[in-house]
């Protein structure tokens, strides 16, 4: 527990991703089983102890610390677990910290009744950092900026194994993952996951940029604007995985009993809506899908108002057969055959876009200004399904971004390397004619799209043109114009401007352009398509 507590403390104070990776990898290498497995589960939010809740801790503390002093302390610190770790009365014996494995064993053995006596015994064995780590581990939600993906990457880095394989095995296994460590650290054969609904890493695409491809070698498909998902059925269970490998099955319950045979399918999760996206039709904009994302439970109304379906791109495994080594053409043929066996209510096929040649394809792409389409995908006809982003196999050819001229309004300091720079910018458009006294309304925020040199210049601009300060935020004199690129814009009730941009980034800094020549908000509103 001592090393785990030190790791948690170090991660709390580390902003740099590489440094976090290094810290976790070092811990995983130096710690024995099963502690490292439990720690990994804790870091990726994979543990749950029903008997230990925040209220349990609160009640324990009120028996030990005078209630007024507890409340004043809790209000100042702002976190129950941390306040408790600091205020826990020091026991009169020296600490005898349990191993992470022992702590997990004790915590899972606790019931709502026994927790009142057993948790204090455990806390008495730890120092303040240990108590903090234990309480965070016990109540879940570490909130130390470590995602599941980061934890997997750190694991791969620790044992020098490919992260794609880690992802593939991880999801079929339960904490503390002994098979995973045996494989990565001891060189044992990889875990057998064929009969488990495990995630397989996605094949990803490179941006096309200036490349021109021959359509004899590449097939084109629309790039749909939903979320990329993997639907896995094995051992009578279906799961839905997101692009990062998170299990999002609970968010889309309507997809869990519609796949009638064992398979691993790759597709785009979309929502049916009135807005007819693409030539197949039936897909609503990303904005509609957003209503469904991130929910742990889904109401009946949600299911009815925003029904989800999967538009299939590819098939990886089918009824015990691994198709990933086959060329795309062969997999595509299998996909076209299997769609007949799937219910139309929840599946359709992403159709292949036919074009005479590349120039014709470019023309088709230009014509598609539809919100459900992000652009085109180009897939090498003879490419196997390879995890990750491999050059030359798949390309994404996004449609050109939309552009609008905005005025810089506020700037905030970045974090990590950028903590001394004002690098996060809020910009606005004119709410009417600026020459007749119209105001700027904020329309978006961006912190990318400029070089380090430009960042220095922008930082200098912000510092020398500040008119007001609100904590870490500076308001500028609104004298600088940004050409902002974005993928689409949607109506939004949450923003004062009534709209929300998707993927805004700084396209060009218009040092030359007077602010009153920036765009008006009507120009942006005209681009709303939902």
């Amino acid at each position, binding site marked *: 527990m001592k090393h785990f507590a030190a790791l948690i403390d170090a991660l*709390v*104070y*580390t*902003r740099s991703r590489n440094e976090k990776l290094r810290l976790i990898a070092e811990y995983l290498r130096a710690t024995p089983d099963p502690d490292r497995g439990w720690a990994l589960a804790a870091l990726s939010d994979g543990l749950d102890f029903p008997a230990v809740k925040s209220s349990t801790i609160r009640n324990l503390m009120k028996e030990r*610390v*005078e209630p*007024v*002093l507890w409340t*004043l*302390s809790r209000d*100042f*610190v*702002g*976190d129950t677990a*941390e*306040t408790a770790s*600091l*205020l826990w009365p020091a026991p009169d014996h020296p600490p005898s910290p349990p191993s992470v494995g022992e702590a997990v064993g004790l915590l899972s053995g606790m019931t709502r009744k026994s927790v009142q006596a057993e948790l204090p015994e455990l806390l008495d064995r730890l120092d303040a950092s240990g108590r*903090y780590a234990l309480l965070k581990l016990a109540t879940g939600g570490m909130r130390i900026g470590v995602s599941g993906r980061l934890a997997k990457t750190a694991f791969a880095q620790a044992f020098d194994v490919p992260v794609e394989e880690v992802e593939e095995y991880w999801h079929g296994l339960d904490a503390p993952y002994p098979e995973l460590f045996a494989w990565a650290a001891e060189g044992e054969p990889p875990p057998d996951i064929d009969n488990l609904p495990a995630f397989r890493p996605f094949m990803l695409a490179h941006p096309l940029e200036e490349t021109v491809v021959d359509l004899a070698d590449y097939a084109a498909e629309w790039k749909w604007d939903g979320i990329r998902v993997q639907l896995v059925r094995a051992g009578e269970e279906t799961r839905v995985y997101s692009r990062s490998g998170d299990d999002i099955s609970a968010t889309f319950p309507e997809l869990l009993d519609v796949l009638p045979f064992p398979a691993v399918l790759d597709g785009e999760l979309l929502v049916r809506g009135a807005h007819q996206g693409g030539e197949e039709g039936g897909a609503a904009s990303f904005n509609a899908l957003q209503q469904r994302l991130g929910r742990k439970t889904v109401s009946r109304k949600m299911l009815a108002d925003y029904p989800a379906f999967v538009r299939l791109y590819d098939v990886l495994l089918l009824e015990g057969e691994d198709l990933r080594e086959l060329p795309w053409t062969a997999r595509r043929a299998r996909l076209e055959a299997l769609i007949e066996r799937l219910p139309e209510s929840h599946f359709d096929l992403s159709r292949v876009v036919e074009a005479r040649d590349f120039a014709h394809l470019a023309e088709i792409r230009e014509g598609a200004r539809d919100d459900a389409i992000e652009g085109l995908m180009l897939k090498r006809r003879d490419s196997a399904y390879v995890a990750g982003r491999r050059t030359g196999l798949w390309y994404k050819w996004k449609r050109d971004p939309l552009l609008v001229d905005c005025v810089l309004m506020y700037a905030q*300091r970045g*974090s990590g390397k950028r*903590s*001394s720079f004002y690098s996060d910018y809020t910009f606005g458009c004119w709410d009417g004619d600026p020459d007749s006294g119209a105001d700027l309304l904020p329309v978006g925020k961006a912190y990318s799209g400029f070089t380090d040199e430009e960042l220095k210049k922008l*930082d200098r601009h912000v510092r020398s043109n500040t008119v007001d300060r609100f904590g870490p935020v500076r308001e500028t004199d609104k004298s600088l114009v940004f050409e902002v690129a974005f993928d689409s814009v949607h109506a939004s009730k949450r923003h004062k401007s009534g709209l929300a941009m998707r993927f805004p980034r700084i396209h060009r800094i218009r040092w030359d352009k007077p602010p009153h020549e920036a765009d008006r908000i009507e120009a942006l509103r005209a681009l709303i398509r939902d």
Partner: protein
Amino acid sequence: MPAPFSWIRPEPHGIHVVPADCWIDPSRPVDKALVTHGHADHARGGHGETVATPATLAIMELRYRTGAEDEAGEVPHRAVPVEYGETIRLPGGVDATYVPAGHVLGSAQILLEHAGERVVVTGDYKRRPDPTCPPFEVQPCDIFITEATFGLPVFCHPPIEDEMAKLLDRLAAYPERCVLVGAYALGKAQRVIAELRRAGHDAPIYLHGAMEKMCRLYEEHGVELGELRLVSDHTKDQMRGAIVVCPPSALNDRWSRRLPDPVTAMASGWMRVRQRARQRNVELPLVISDHADWSELTRTIDEVDAQETWITHGREDALLRWCQLHQRRARALAMVGREDEDD
């Protein structure tokens, strides 16, 4: 016969010693001030006369230019030095004795005696050893006027040796970087440097320009700080693997860009709370304070054993509650201009 203790009056701008018509740590200019120590929320310029320890007077001359000449070429301010343990007689039959407070160089508690009644004003204080100033001395009294900056039971300052070890471990782990320590320019910075020397760190320590004069002043008062260099005179490469000390405000400032990939550390009692450290982008929190923590505050109140405890500033709610629970009479004074310094 006047009412007990009617001769000492807490006002929003300071503590008024009525028979002597002088003020303790006034936050606006007065004719005659008794000053506990040199921090800006206790000491300021513009008084007609200041009674303080010689070190505090020197700090005030440096920080608030109290020794400046007026247009006629005269120094209008009168500095009255008092040594630790020395008693001076004030008008109206009030005796004032300056007693070490253990807070920073020159810091003193002021013991006031009048008509057989004893009142102690602590200013700021701590009970831990500090190589830059003599330790706090307990003075029995009738009224104890205390600070409460860290007056919450969550505050427990660890032994400074542990924090120094953390700092030196981190320094050794990153020979290509430097460790940048944010520390209050008066007191904390010199204490950290002196403690580093005590821990055996004898490499040159680099200073932000704003700290140079105060460090020299400490050295003139007999505090050895070892070899100090100015950041502005050196290149990035020279500072790799070194400790750099700056005021907290410079931690995330443009100034820090001239340093070799600094590990950001901060020496402050607030670092005990993780969220406080994160808010300041601190990677290495060092829980080092020149104020009494919760156990020091409550222990001191017990040891002094006064009839009444008055609390000047800080988290007075919790300390008042503690006094109530321990059957000690206490009240909070609403003092103006006392703030949470970056301590």
